[in-house]
């Protein structure tokens, strides 16, 4: 069945008609052309299609679009101001924590959720938190360093006035 839904994506309301069977991944990529969200395994095992749902990382390939209404959806396009890199992205660049980078958007969003939840994570907490994101070029050691660097950058960043 088709129905009209409104999704809040990157702080913007998007109203569209979707089929009940359409996944959030299909809507984000095929309809809204948010290309940072990538399909890889299609079964929620690899983290390439990670988006934030109310700040928590989820696999967009497993979530139906119709079940995503009323939630704040963030893709990598919505991180930062669109001009300057977010401190997490800066850290990935400085630590060379990317190679083919197909997995990178998912990793960056998972790290965002991690640091929001655990501002000062241990190595083990980082590994555990990121175990749902796979990287086949094997940048794990570099990604670990990037998380620590991002944590430093964020903790040094001036607090924005509310």
């Amino acid at each position: 069945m088709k129905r009209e839904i409104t999704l809040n994506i990157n702080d913007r309301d998007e109203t569209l008609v979707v089929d009940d069977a359409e996944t959030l991944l299909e809507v984000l990529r095929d309809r809204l052309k948010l290309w940072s969200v990538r399909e890889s395994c299609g079964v929620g095992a690899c983290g390439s299609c990670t988006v934030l749902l109310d700040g928590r990382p989820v696999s967009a390939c497993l979530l139906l679009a119709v079940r995503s209404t009323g939630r704040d959806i963030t893709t990598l396009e919505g991180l930062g101001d669109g001009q300057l890199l977010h401190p997490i992205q800066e850290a990935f660049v400085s630590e060379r924590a990317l190679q083919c980078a197909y997995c990178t958007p998912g990793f960056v969003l998972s790290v965002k959720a991690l640091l929001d939840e655990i501002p000062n994570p241990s190595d083990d907490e980082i590994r555990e938190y990121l175990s749902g994101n796979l990287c086949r070029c094997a940048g794990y050691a570099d990604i670990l360093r990037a998380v620590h660097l991002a944590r430093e950058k964020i903790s040094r960043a001036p607090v924005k006035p509310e």
Partner: protein
Amino acid sequence: MATRDKDMADLSVVGQSVYRTDANPKVTGRALHVGNIEMPGMLHVAVLRSPYAHARIKRIDKAKAEALSGVAVVLTGAEIAKMPGVDAHFGPAFRDQPILAVEKVCYAGDPVVAVAAVDRRTAEDALQLVEVDYEQLPAVFDVLEAVKSDSPFVHEQHRPAKAFADLAHVKAGRQSNICYHFKLRTGDVDKAFAEADRVFEDTFSSPPAQHVPMEPHVTLVYLDEHARLNVWTSSQSPSYVRTELSATFGIPMNRIRVRVPYIGGGYGAKLYAKLEPLATVLALITRKPVRYALTREEEFLTITKHGVVTKIKTAVKNGAITARKCEVYWDTGAYAEIGPRIGHKSGYTSAGPYRIPNVWIDSYCVYTNRVPAGAFRGFGVPQVIWAYDSQTDLIARALGADPVEFRLKPALEEGEPFATGTLVHSFGIKEAIRQAAQAIDWTKPRAVQAGTKRRGKGIAAGVKAVLTPSISGAIVILNADGTANVLSSTVEMGQGSETTLGQIVAEELGLSVGQVHIVQPDTDVTPYDTITAGSRSTYHMGNAVRMAAAKVKAALCEVVAAKLEVAPDDLLARNGRVCVRGMEERGMTIGEIFLAKFGSLGTTLAAEAVCQPTAAHMDPETGQSEASRGGGMSTDRRPHGPGNRPVGKMHGVLVSFGHRRGSRGRYRNRARRSSATHQRRRHRHGDQSETL
């Protein structure tokens, strides 16, 4: 090729740590991938695959599928075989792989029927309406069974492809599953075994594994306004794809344009032709853009690395290895793919990087009814290292020798002959063994208990052949404002080639990395390159871009030398200027040189160069080589800077060691590989070694 006399100290860009030039598009998710490209009216492909490992196709009924709304075409292999001027089979070594199965299927997963429809779901729905009747045939799944004379044959005959110079010697064959046999005979093995103190005989087997690039294979094909074939594809070998499509469809090469944007990992899985022939035939029939993207499950049914059985017999006399006899059986699956090249180049390294006077190698590339096997991180070399250096450990243990010392003694020295007769150059194996031993505190106690886990130590040494003959062409275009464009068919797939090639050109022309743009592979403009694989790009393409840049620099120097009345040899390029060595304030900017030469600033200065190292003249029957240059082995002595350091790639290589054990695919009944990612455990955070 001119030798380079500069020391690292003289280099201003190469060797420096720079940010990856592809970092920004990649870290923002804006990097262009084939899957982001859409064309108006684009069709999507779904493929019906064989449930049987070996079967004759008796009947295909596709009428209902064709009648489904939204379906543009339902295609079978029999129809492709009837298309005039089209070769229904392709492949880099043998033309044995059908675009869609013709008459019979050769593995469970073999593509049988393709549908192109308005969207993927419609295409998948249509597949449900296709009926296929099969007559099952006896199948063979074990490489040692497949070489027996009473084994079922996967193919009745073997048709060489003649696409690569190094595979020109593969022969047509029939009535055998062995499609390629590499032999090497050095010294008198039988005599050495007869005179040995001890003989060690072991068999090692290494299973297939899938590459699992995070981006599954994807190809988009359309005909442009000139009806030229345009192909966007996630490939490691754009030049080869063009050649293959030209040969398969009889289309002139200048009417085929292959472009490769950033690709999401390859590791060998994306070499040669994969989805391109089927996407092409569907685009030719429908005259519409066609996107063919594999699902993760299909990825497992498309290509794996070779499962290998290696039998090794080693003679030891007076504590030294005196002879080694290796029989290597490469399970290349239903289609040879690049198996013969692997059987050759990795087969001849199967005695190891050691001084062994008597060597006998038989390396067989063997068809079975399994998923086709191809290159994967090391081109087959990890499988043979696993075999010979496991045995080296067994021998050392039996002799009571220290595994490090036992390897150091026979490890080849610079300039010594390898088993093939090739002299090894730039060969740092002894140093590598020593440094590796030091890095893991070899002399300290070996086993460490950490909770429920035990950590041991081990060491292995390996040697990898380089791909020869091997060719890279490049064009460097210098703009009047002191920026440059570099045309190269090397594919940036994560290894950092874009940054490395940029550094090399910047160094040669005295520019900064940011002033050099590497144009992504586009066969309309970027010259031929053999493949992006085998650790060859920095050397081959690196030299091609360096030589092309040197030609541009020579043209600049000619102008400056005339203007300033100095010898061209006294000039150097630095900071966007060409100036007099030792008097760097005397010189001209690139803009000034362009004005002097052309009287205009809108011009460009371009040069092409081809890097084609002298190939070893090797007799494929004996493995004996007459010349060594370019045929030897190298250790990278000049890293191009930590920013694009080989360390990243080394992390990946370490992970692939785990493939000996960790990611073995299970073959269930009918030899179909159990597939989706969730059924197996991939390497995750915490599975990887921490030190390098």
